[in-house]
Structure formats: structure tokens, C-alpha cells
């Protein structure tokens, strides 16, 4: 079986979310599933579909620092995207590749990453609903939505993590315990660089994850491009949705 592999490089947050959305919108059951690897430039905070931007993000501070803020199509929490590889996976909901059951499908898709981490000499495991951990510390967060009869799952693979910087951009419910919260998160989150004690390149991680997806789905990932239709729709969605205050501040 062949999948399409998209390596779209580093883009701003609005483009990144618009590209995932366009792929998911136009995917047909007869098309090969798509795996996309990407990064964020500038760095960005993404918030979950059900979160309130005003309640979660220091949006003024982000603006001052040139950090994008965007609402995702998917649920879950706020994420600071900086030194990471982000992936997205799109297939038809009817596909036998993933279960109708949401928990099962998270497990299946996340197993691609678990296998990918193996190629980086890291022993990772899936923790329901949507995390991947190494030595009990989170190294990847994932989120899924099902729209247009397709499954879209995207997630992070942390190459390096800066918890202090992340919390300087996020609001917490109780300022008094922010320090304590930061310490807890530092103990619970890790990164590839941390675990390997060296700096990995984006390309090294994407190669490992490519192998992980291939092994997990017994498929070959063939490098492709966005179709003209996808690129055009992504531009439109970026302009009309993800870059709009009406979308980002909608809750």
C-alpha cells in the first residue's frame, strides 16, 4: 500500500492549520492516506477547539514576541510549538486502517510514532487518550477530529522543550500556584534532545517517523506535493478562517 508523504517545511501557524484542513476536506476514500511532516515559523501557540483564547493565552505578550496564536480544529489543550516535528495524518473514516472507535484509532495512529521513536533509540509507549511517553514523561501530544467523513489526526514530537518559555505565554487558572505548576510540568514533560543528550535535526526525526508510519501501516510513504486544489483551498481557509479574529477568539 502507498501513502502520500508531504514535507511542507516550516510555515506560519495559520498556513499550517489551513493545510491540514484542506487535505482533510478534499480527501476521498479512493485517495491514498496522507502523512505530513511540518514545523512552525514563527513559533506559535495553538489552542484546542473548545478553549477560550482569552482565558488560556497571554495574547499581548505573544504579539510582542512575534509568536502566532491559532485555534485548532481539534480539541485538547494549548500547545507551544517551537522545536518540534509536527505530523498530520488523514484517511477516510471508512478506511480499514483505523478503527471507528476513537480511542482505538488514537492508539493505532500513535503507534506509528512509538515505532518511529524506536528508530531514535527511544522506548516510547502510548498512554490513552492521546499521549506518548518516554520513561513516564510526555514526549508527544496528539489530537484528532473527524470531519467530511475523514479522520484527521495531528500531533507534536518534541525535539526540545522550554517549559519556562511556554508558561510565559500561557495563562494559568491560579497565578499563586504557577511556580509549582511549572515544576510539575518540567518533571512530566521531556524531549528527544533531553533523552538522547544531544541535538537532533528535524530531518533525522522526520526520517525516523517516516519509517514508523511505514512499519505501522505496512505501507510505503511516497513523497508527494499538495495538489493545486488543496493549495488553493488552504490559501482560502487561511485567509477566511485561521487568520481571523472571529475564529481565534470564537470561544
Amino acid at each position, binding site marked *: 500500500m502507498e501513502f502520500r508523504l508531504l514535507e511542507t517545511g516550516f510555515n506560519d501557524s495559520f498556513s499550517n492549520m489551513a493545510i491540514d484542513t484542506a487535505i482533510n476536506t478534499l480527501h476521498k476514500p479512493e485517495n491514498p492516506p496522507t502523512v505530513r511532516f511540518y514545523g512552525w515559523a514563527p513559533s506559535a501557540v495553538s489552542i484546542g477547539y*473548545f*478553549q477560550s483564547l482569552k*482565558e488560556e493565552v497571554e495574547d499581548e505578550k505573544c504579539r510582542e514576541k512575534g509568536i502566532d496564536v491559532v485555534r485548532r480544529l481539534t480539541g485538547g489543550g494549548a500547545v507551544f510549538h517551537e522545536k518540534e516535528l509536527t505530523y498530520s495524518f488523514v484517511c477516510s473514516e471508512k478506511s480499514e486502517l483505523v478503527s471507528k472507535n476513537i480511542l482505538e484509532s488514537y492508539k493505532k495512529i500513535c503507534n506509528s510514532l512509538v515505532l518511529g521513536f524506536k528508530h531514535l533509540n527511544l522506548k516510547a509507549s502510548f498512554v490513552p487518550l492521546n499521549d506518548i511517553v518516554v520513561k513516564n514523561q510526555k514526549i508527544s501530544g496528539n489530537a484528532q477530529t473527524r470531519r467530511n467523513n475523514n479522520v484527521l489526526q495531528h500531533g507534536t514530537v518534541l525535539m526540545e522543550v522550554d517549559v519556562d518559555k511556554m508558561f510565559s505565554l500561557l495563562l494559568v*487558572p491560579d497565578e499563586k500556584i504557577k511556580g509549582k505548576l511549572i515544576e510539575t510540568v518540567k518533571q512530566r514533560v521531556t524531549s528527544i534532545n533531553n533523552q538522547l543528550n544531544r541535538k537532533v535535526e528535524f530531518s533525522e526525526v522526520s526520517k525516523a517517523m517516516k519509517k514508523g508510519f511505514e512499519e505501522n501501516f505496512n505501507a510505503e510513504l511516497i513523497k508527494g506535493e499538495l495538489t493545486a486544489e488543496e493549495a488553493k483551498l488552504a490559501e482560502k481557509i487561511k485567509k477566511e478562517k485561521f487568520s481571523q479574529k472571529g475564529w481565534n477568539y470564537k470561544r
Partner: protein
Amino acid sequence: MIGKSVYKIPEGKLVKISLDFKEEKINFVRITGDFFLHPENGLELIEQELKGTELEKESIIQSIQKTVEKNSLDLFGLNPKGIADAILKAKGD
């Protein structure tokens, strides 16, 4: 009357509520948080259905349950009882 709450659902996620109510009935409620709900438009359906519902635990749970069942919603990190407790906390109970 307006109320707000932040409530950690036992075994679940942190839910934030903005509530507007009058004479013990919900005028408007907004539920936010880092949970998952499929399909996503289901949350707005839950919020709409809650309008006019009495601010009483069983009535709120029933209203949410009805929307969840009618629309086959899948909830992760939240549940009708948890949402009801969060709403009642916003009311000041």
C-alpha cells in the same frame, strides 16, 4: 446574574464555565476547556439545549444526556455530571 467557574472534573479535564442566569434558569452558558468532544459542533448543541434549563443538578444532567444521546456524541475528559457540577459552581452553589 452572571457567574464563572473553573472546575476539575474528577478523572477528567479542567472545565471553565461562563454562566448567565435568571430566576434559577439558565439564560446562557459557555463551556470551555481542554477536553475532546466528537463531533465538535456537539458542544454548541449542548449549550443551546441548556438554555432555559433549571439550575438544578438532575435537570442539567438530563438536558446534557439528551443532547449526547440524540447526536451520538463522544465525550473524552468530561461527562454530564461533571459539566453540571461546574455549572452549579458558577452559579455559586
